[in-house]
Structure formats: C-alpha cells, structure tokens
C-alpha cells in the first residue's frame, strides 16, 4: 500500500514539471530549466512560460483533481458507480449559458439591442464563462427542485431528473444556436468540447481556493460519507444527518463542476473514470478515494493536456475529445473485466 502511495507521490511531483517541457512554442530544455530555477532571461520566454504554460499546467492539475473528486463524492453519496458530475445537467446548463452569452454578446442581435453599449467593460471572453457558470448553477438548482418536489428524495430519482434537465437545457441551447449565426454556433460547439487553452493566471487563483476548500470539507466529512455507503438508515443510526450531508456534498460538487465547466468547457469521463481506478488501486473509504482522486485526477489531466498541445503540430485538440476517447475505452474494458 505504501509503495502505491509513493508511486502516486512521485507521479504528482514529476508530471507537472515534465508537462512544462511540452508546448506549441519551441523552448529549449536549458531555457526551461533556467526559467524554473532562476527565472527566464528573455522577456518573451518569460511571458510564454509564466503567463501561459505554467498556469495552464497548474490549472490542468486542479481541473482534473476537482472533476475526479466531484465524481467520487457523487458516486459515494448516491451509492451509484455510474454517477458523474455531468449527469446533473451541469454541462448542458453551462452550454445554455454559453449559448445565451454568444447570442447576446457576440452577434448582430447584440448590436441591435445595444447590449455591448450597456456592458462596455464586459468583454465576450468574460461574459461567456460568467453566463456558463450561472447556467451550470441553474441546472443543478433545477435538478434539486425537481428531484425533491416531484419524485421524493431517492437518489436514483435525482439522477433521472438530472438526465431530463440535461436534455431539456440542451434542447434550449440548440434552439438558440439554430436561431443564431453559424459562426456563433461554431464558437459554442468548440467551447463545449473543452479546452485549457484560454487559461490565465487569474483563473488559477480562482480555482485554487475552490478546489482546496471543497476537498478540505469533503475530507472532514469523509467518515460521514463512508457511513452513507452503508445505506441511509444505517447512516442515521450512526448519527449522520443524511439529508444535510447529501445537500452539502451536492453543493460542493456543483460548485466545483460549475467553476471548471464554465471556464474550460465540457471535459467528460474524468469524474467517472478516475474514482474507479483509485478505488481498485488504493481502497474504497472516502478519504482515501478523495486524496487519491486529487493526485491521480490532477496528473491524468496534466498529461491529457500535454497530448492536446503536442499531438498535432499546428493545432490543438479540444481536451474533451481526448478524455471522452480514453474514458469510453476504459469503460468498455471495465465492463468486459467484470463480465469475466
């Protein structure tokens, strides 16, 4: 067991540093080592390294960690191995927000309605993630309301409500894109494929406290979440306030996912795949799974982003394509192994 943790620790140290050596700009190894150890001499290299590449690697780690932790927590509190942050309609909600922002801030309609004049200091590059964040929160809120008011509090009902809300919001955003200009539809579709390309330093400073506080709270309630795995009734007899814990965990997962999706777009399968690997590799109790997800999810995303940056010489592959490709194959492998 200790050896496994040591390996994981080594991976966490090596991955982000190694990832700094890959990118579209051609920086030599000596230049990079100088940038890391003494600071870059050349101001252009300095900008590339400290304002583009390093924040991207750092945020990639946080995004992977956040999605994996959110997935693991949702799987535990719903006692359903198929739960994923995106099942709650977060991506569809963020997509709807992004579509509305595109329609209102980046089309002829925005000029006709005078929206740009109303918000002169809000560029489209900020309006889109902001609207996506609101859309993501709206979808989570809607799922909660529908699940609790219409079906009762059973967790599988919440998943079903999530799927229904997801389809509903997707239909709305597709309708908006259909009405909009073809160029606007392109923007949203590529945004939904997910990317860390637009990451800037300020976003790293937003994501860091969100991930750290979320993980800290979940670790604090680790034993309570473990009790939930035994069933609601058993958890209650152990003194766990089941409903309150479930709402708190959901709120944390929603905040984590909304923060990530609103800025980085749809990055699927990480929240589903990483917790499964961690459970089979390190153990099933919540605290172990959460720490394992932070470390492995972070490293996974760092390397996926390296692949996105360097696989094609002159272009970047949207990161969601890679995670979904890896995730789907992983899923099929797990299913076939279980069958045998």
């Amino acid at each position: 067991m200790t050896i496994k943790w040591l390996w994981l620790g080594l991976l966490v140290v090596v991955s982000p540093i190694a990832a700094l050596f890959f990118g579209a700009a051609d920086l030599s190894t000596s230049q990079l080592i100088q940038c890391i150890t003494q600071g870059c001499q050349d101001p252009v290299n300095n900008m590339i390294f400290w304002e583009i590449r390093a924040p991207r690697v750092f945020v990639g780690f946080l995004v992977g960690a956040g999605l994996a932790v959110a997935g693991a927590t949702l799987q535990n509190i719903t006692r359903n191995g198929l739960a994923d942050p995106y099942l709650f309609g977060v991506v569809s909600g963020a997509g709807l927000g992004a579509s509305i922002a595109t329609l209102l801030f980046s089309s002829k309609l925005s000029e006709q309605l005078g929206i740009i004049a109303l918000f002169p200091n809000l560029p489209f590059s900020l309006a889109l993630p902001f609207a996506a964040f609101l859309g993501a929160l709206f979808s989570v809120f809607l799922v909660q309301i529908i699940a609790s008011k219409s079906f009762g509090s059973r967790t599988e009902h919440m998943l079903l409500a999530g799927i229904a809300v997801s389809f509903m919001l997707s239909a709305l955003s597709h309708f908006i894109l259909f009405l909009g200009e073809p160029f606007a539809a392109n923007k949203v579709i590529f945004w939904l494929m997910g990317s860390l390309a637009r990451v800037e330093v300020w976003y790293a400073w937003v994501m860091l406290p969100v991930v750290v506080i979320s993980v800290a709270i979940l670790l604090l309630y680790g034993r309570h979440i473990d009790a939930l795995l035994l069933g609601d009734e058993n958890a209650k007899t152990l003194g766990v306030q089941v409903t309150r814990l479930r709402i708190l965990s959901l709120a944390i997962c929603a905040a984590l996912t909304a923060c990530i999706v609103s800025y980085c777009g749809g990055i699927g399968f990480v929240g589903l795949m990483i917790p499964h690997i961690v459970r089979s590799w390190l153990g099933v109790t919540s605290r172990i799974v959460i720490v394992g997800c932070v470390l492995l999810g972070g490293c996974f995303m760092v390397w996926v982003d390296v692949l996105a940056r360097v696989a094609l010489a002159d272009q970047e592959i949207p990161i969601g394509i890679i995670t979904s490709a890896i995730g789907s194959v992983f899923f099929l492998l797990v299913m076939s192994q279980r069958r045998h």
Partner: protein
Amino acid sequence: MRQLNHYLLSAFFWASLAVHPNLYAVNGDSKDSLQKQRIIALAPHIVESLYAIGAGEQIIGTTAFADYPEAAKDILQVGNYARLQIEKIIQLQPDVIIAWKTGNPTDDLARLEKYQLKVIYSDPQTLEDVGKELIMLGKLTGREAASNSVAKRYLTRLQKIKKTYAEQHKVSVFYELWSRPIRTVSNKAWPQQQLELCGASNPFKNATDDYPTVGLEQVLVTLPQVVVQPGHTGAESPDALNWSQWQHIPAVKNNFIFHPNADKVHRMTTRMLDEVVILCEQIDTARQFYLTQG
C-alpha cells in the same frame, strides 16, 4: 454615362482610402520598415490579399486552409478557426497580426491584444470591401502603389460586371450552400451579393437571417430556373442534394445546375471575381434560354 461611372468609381476609390480607421495606425512608419514588418495573417483571404499586393513574403504565420497561392502552403501554421496557438504566436513576435473579425476565436484575439501585440482586423462585408481591404493592407505594408493598382483593377472589374447584368432580365436562382439541413443565402450574405451582381433573383432574399435554413418543400415550390451548388475545387459536392429526382423543376429539366468553386467564391479576394464571372455567364446562358422559350 461612362464618364459618370468612372467618376463615381474614382470617388469611391479615394473615399475608401479616407474612411478606413486602421490606416492612421501606421502613418508614422517609414515605407522601408513597413515593408519589412513581420505579419501573422489569420485567415486564408488575408493571406491571398497580401500575396496579391506583393507582401506575401512578410507573412510568418497563418491558420489552416491558407492554401493560395502555392507558396502559402509553406507558411507556418499557428492554429485554425477554432483555436490559436498563443504560445507560438508570442514566440514569433510579429509586428502585426491581421485577424478576421468573425472568423477567429475572439477570446484568443483579446488575449493577444492583452499581451501588447498589435492586432488589426479584416472585416469585409460587401464585394466593394475587398478593394478597401487591399488598400488598408497596402498602407499597412508600405505598398500603396501596388495595392491601389490592384484595388482599382478589382473595383473597375466589379463595376463592369455590375453594369453588364444590372438591367438584364432576372433569373430565379436557388443557392444551395449546405444540404443537410438545407441552408441557403439571403440579405447581406456574401454569395447573395454575388447573385445580385449576376442579375439573379433569390426567392429567399428577404429571410431574417443571412444564411437561413429552409425546408425542402419551401425550396421545391419556388421552381428555381437555376440551382447553384458550390463545391470544393468546382466539383459537385458528394453531400449535395440530388436534384435529378425533381424533373418538373425548370433548373433540373433544362440542366442549369452549376457548381462554382467554393474556395474561390466564398473567399473575399480578387480571385473571387474570376469565378463570379463564370457563374454570371452560366446564369446568363440560362437567362437567354428562358428568354427564347418565352
């Protein structure tokens, strides 16, 4: 009349010199230094126009699909229409980036501007704007004489085509931009302006959107006399509608289905007119046929 046309054309030409806001940005630089500026051109039509005025050698980076002239294929690519490689662009340290307002990712461009890189926008809306853009690029690269001459030649030719077909009998044309779903052109769309230039009437001209999607039934009841199906390199697109199944439509019955080269007609460059002239002539063939049929 000819003199008046010439006068109007000249007035437009010189007015276009005066109105472009970006022209003043480079007034202080010497011609020699402007001709040595290192440029990143973020759209195929910008690359083509730069080559047309002799500034092709100044391009150090471009995006995917910049494939004309042949030399453009060797230019380093720094992204595509969905995403730019910011790291690579910063490392190249261009003197100026010429971006396409509606065709490049706005968040990436905003970021480049944030890093103090000079970004100038190309935003051609009308066929005449191609001339304006050439003049703007000429100013930017210190090649005013060449660009003015190319622009003037282009605008004169455009005016000539306009005059040739302005008073001609209108032919009903359906422009099949995309087949699934069927998307056509209207209003101020680029191909719509070309259709108007050729004296064609588009039944969907007044749709609310520039590129509206329309139903097959809507299209068939208009009984178009000509169908235009643009395809890459002028060939019929494999995904295009199979019109031969609707023999009652005049365009099908009389075989007036044309396939202009999409790479030329959809690119806002001087080369576009070569293909438009062919399209206008094809439409005119149909016009003469229908006129003789009564």
